């Protein structure tokens, strides 16, 4: 059925894609050629420092796939979700499009080139070299902090999907099984990788079809640990059926948290290639299908008759006393939607392994910039999925619902198949990236707390599992998402400013990174300040923030004030660190600029 073209999400998604493409071939190419002067004949670290282990040239297609997989997680899915629901799809869309065009790709690409021109060094050593040890330590502290939050957030997202999309857990179990078996087959049984892959995929498919086709396997709903009467005590969205909800503080949540923590711990203590990585491998194959499908479906909406159901612009200001995640659209929207527009995590990836494996300098743009624009496309399709929903359920399951809606209209299959596919997709992506984040957390803790028990592999793993688990359990993560966005985006701003300093030290123009860097720094510092203020108000008023009320009912009102004061204090700390870091960066930039103009 043909709909008014502009009433569907398609034109907006297409506009975004077109704008990305145009930016890539004009602005990005310009920066690549004029400012960085990339030269395919100049040897890259992959060739100069060849060691056959980390430094060796890799095809740009493989690196693109690797970069994309490392930067894209649930970020472009969770962020737009909240953004659309709070502020409307127009602001979300505009930020995802223009943010990526001027800031997003620039960060990913520039940090990669900075690393390439610094002998393949990563953010830590480069920060150290340009700004000193203290700046590097602050960087690591941020990392610690936001890794804890993102783990908590993802735990919640996974739990929400596991509970509200019945059958997901069973299907995911098959994926994990396939992963473990793949690891065994390839290592212990020395099977050919191709054969092992096929077997693993067959297992996944068995799980998928069994769950989709057999209602008995799919039901019952998994909040079997809570009774409807118990659940009805907790504040829930209007009209929601308590029996199908997973609400913070409930036993169901606790149950899932324990399972997830056991899984994460198992991943942490086994050698990566035997468990974690084969799971990544097996889990990624259906996920790629899911991603491609939802993008195609978003573009095909005029043909499939999906109309936009969401309000274009909902509010420019959301009262934080009504909803603690709210605030003025600037700066809050900009930190709510992180990955998809711009994300600091990417700078770590770009300068981590990828820069050491670029075959030619000219590959940096398609790999770094290309991956970021592709992630933007994923965010666009997530926005489209949200746009199609009239009454999205609260929580991450909204994405599953939206994606199912889009794709079933395209493929004309019973919705349950897509439901399960996207349930698997969100869960597996969440699991995989969480396991990798926990590993990075361990590494950073080991570096920061060398010698002390906190640096111990098992203790730090337990630490993050307990803290993140607690945050997910009491639902505080919802507010801490702003802190996450704040630190992540601050990291992005800092990365951009670092590139500006690097370019200044090379006597090159810095505007294209400096301006976005300052913008991001100011925005995120404002967001952190705002959030500290909000927590402060809630703490002083002793009001529970949304879902804390549920936890308070279980454990007593002290949870509310303790939690809020701690959060306010944390916010203040991050703000101070952020200001200090920004100060280092700006004064560094000024210094190098002075030197550059002095020597002209």
């Amino acid at each position, binding site marked *: 059925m043909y709909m008014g073209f502009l009433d569907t999400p398609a034109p907006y998604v297409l506009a975004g894609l077109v704008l990305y493409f145009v930016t890539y071939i004009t602005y990005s190419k310009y920066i690549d050629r004029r400012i960085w002067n990339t030269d395919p004949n100049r040897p890259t670290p992959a060739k100069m420092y060849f060691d056959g282990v980390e430094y060796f040239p890799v095809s740009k297609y493989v690196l693109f796939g690797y970069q994309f997989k490392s930067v894209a997680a649930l970020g472009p899915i969770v962020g737009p979700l909240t953004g659309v629901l709070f502020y409307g799809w127009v602001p979300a869309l505009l930020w995802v499009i223009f943010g990526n065009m001027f800031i997003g790709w620039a960060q990913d690409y520039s940090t990669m080139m900075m690393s390439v021109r610094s002998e393949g060094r990563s953010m830590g050593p480069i920060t150290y070299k340009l700004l000193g040890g203290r700046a590097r330590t602050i960087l690591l502290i941020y990392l610690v902090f936001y890794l804890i939050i993102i783990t908590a957030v993802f735990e919640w997202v996974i739990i929400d999907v596991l509970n509200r999309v019945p059958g997901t857990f069973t299907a995911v179990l098959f994926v994990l099984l396939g992963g473990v078996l793949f690891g065994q087959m*390839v*290592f212990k049984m*020395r099977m*050919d*990788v191709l054969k092992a892959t096929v077997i693993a995929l067959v297992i996944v498919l068995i799980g998928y079809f069994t769950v989709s086709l057999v209602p008995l396997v799919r039901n019952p709903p998994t909040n079997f640990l809570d009774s409807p009467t118990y659940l009805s005590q907790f504040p829930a969205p209007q009209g929601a059926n308590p029996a199908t909800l997973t609400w913070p503080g409930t036993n169901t949540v606790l149950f899932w948290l324990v399972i997830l923590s056991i899984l994460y711990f198992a991943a942490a203590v086994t050698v990566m*290639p035997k468990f974690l990585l084969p799971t990544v491998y097996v889990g990624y194959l259906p996920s790629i299908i899911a991603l491609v499908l939802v993008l195609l479906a978003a573009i095909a909406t005029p043909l499939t008759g999906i109309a936009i159901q969401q309000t274009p612009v909902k509010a420019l200001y959301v009262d934080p006393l009504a909803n603690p995640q709210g605030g003025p659209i600037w700066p809050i929207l900009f930190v709510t939607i992180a990955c998809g527009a711009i994300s600091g995590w990417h700078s770590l990836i770009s300068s981590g392994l990828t820069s050491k494996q670029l075959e030619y300098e000219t590959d940096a743009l398609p790999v770094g910039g290309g991956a970021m624009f592709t992630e933007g496309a994923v965010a666009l399709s997530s926005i489209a999925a949200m746009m199609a929903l009239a009454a999205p359920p609260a929580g991450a399951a909204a994405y599953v619902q939206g994606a199912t809606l889009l794709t079933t209209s395209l493929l004309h299959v019973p919705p349950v198949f897509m439901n399960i596919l996207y349930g698997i997709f969100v869960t597996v992506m969440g699991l995989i990236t969480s396991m990798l984040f926990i590993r990075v957390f361990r590494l950073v803790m080991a570096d920061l707390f060398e010698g002390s028990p906190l640096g111990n592999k098992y203790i730090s793993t337990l630490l993050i599992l307990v803290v993140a688990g607690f945050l997910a359990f009491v639902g505080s993560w919802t507010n801490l998402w702003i802190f996450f966005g704040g630190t992540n985006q601050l990291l992005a701003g800092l990365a951009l400013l670092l590139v500006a300093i690097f370019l200044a030290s090379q006597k090159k123009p810095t505007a294209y990174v400096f301006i976005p860097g300052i913008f991001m720094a100011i925005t995120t510092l404002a967001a952190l300040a705002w959030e500290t203020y909000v927590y402060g108000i809630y703490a002083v008023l002793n009001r529970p923030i949304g879902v804390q009320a549920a936890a308070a009912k279980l454990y007593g009102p002290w949870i509310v004030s303790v939690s809020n004061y701690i959060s306010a204090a944390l916010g203040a700390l991050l703000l101070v660190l952020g200001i200090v870091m920004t100060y280092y960066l700006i004064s560094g930039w000024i210094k190098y600029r002075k030197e550059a103009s002095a020597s002209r």
Partner: protein
Amino acid sequence: MIGLKGLLERRPGLKVLIYAGKGGLGKTTLSAASSLLLSESKRVLVFSTDPQASLSDVFERDVFGKGEVKIAENLYVLEIDADKRINEYVASIKKKIIDMYRLDKLPPDLEEYIDSAAAEPAMYESAVYDAMVDVVAEGKYDYYIFDMPPFGHGIRMVAMADVLSQWVEKITELRKQAYEYGRVATSLKRAKLTYEDEILKELQYIRDRIVAFRNIITDSQTTAFMVVVTPERMSILDTEKALEMFSSLGLEAAGIVVNQVYPPELAKSPDTPEYIRNRVEEQRKYMAEIKQKFGDMVISVVPMLNREPKGLEALSLVAKELWSPSKSLDDYI
């Protein structure tokens, strides 16, 4: 004193006779003499690796580096030019690298490494022991008599052998583990691993050689260690240490031969110069010490000849005393 004859009667399975002891005590002479004796009835190979080329001296025939040379019926001499062997070995390794990787020449630091490894005494030792393993393994002779070069009584490697073979096993295990990972990584990327089989083969070969050497040395049925001592303070102390070391390695010396002993008659002859008479007196002290410390282990006392023990004729005199001593130990005290 039972003499070599008595020793062989007690140990009928003996095939390998190793003369150990510090340099300059006459090991070479004694090995040569033993070989002469045994060649009367069986095929014998006497083998020396002493860089002083002493067997050539003793047999008055240049046999250095000439392979197994027949001196008399059933008597063969092998004097290994260890340096030449090492040089050839090292050259072959260098050539192998150049051929395998089609280089113009070896990178200088690699060449330096190889050359300095080749110059080490450890290299010399290993080459010697390796040659010994070869010779015994060939099995062409009934008796093998070795005159071990004087490095720490020449059996350090026995102590090392167990440790070394364990190291090699450990390395092989490591290698296989790495191979597993490498195989997966490269098959994930559709690349190829190189030379794994060859490395594992080499590791196996190395282990086999080390173990073969150890087996020869520690098989007390077939191998006997003969320690040479002279009636001097240092020599006696050294011999005590040597015996301790043997026992700490779980080996035992089969017999002790006292060499370079002044014939006691010299003391009685009126023509003997004063200083010799004194020496003979002194010697009695040491001989007593030897009897007290080593007692039954002494199988023979070989008196000094009135000329250098060179040539088959002189050697047979030594051989006679070695085989079946004409005097008893007490006669010297």
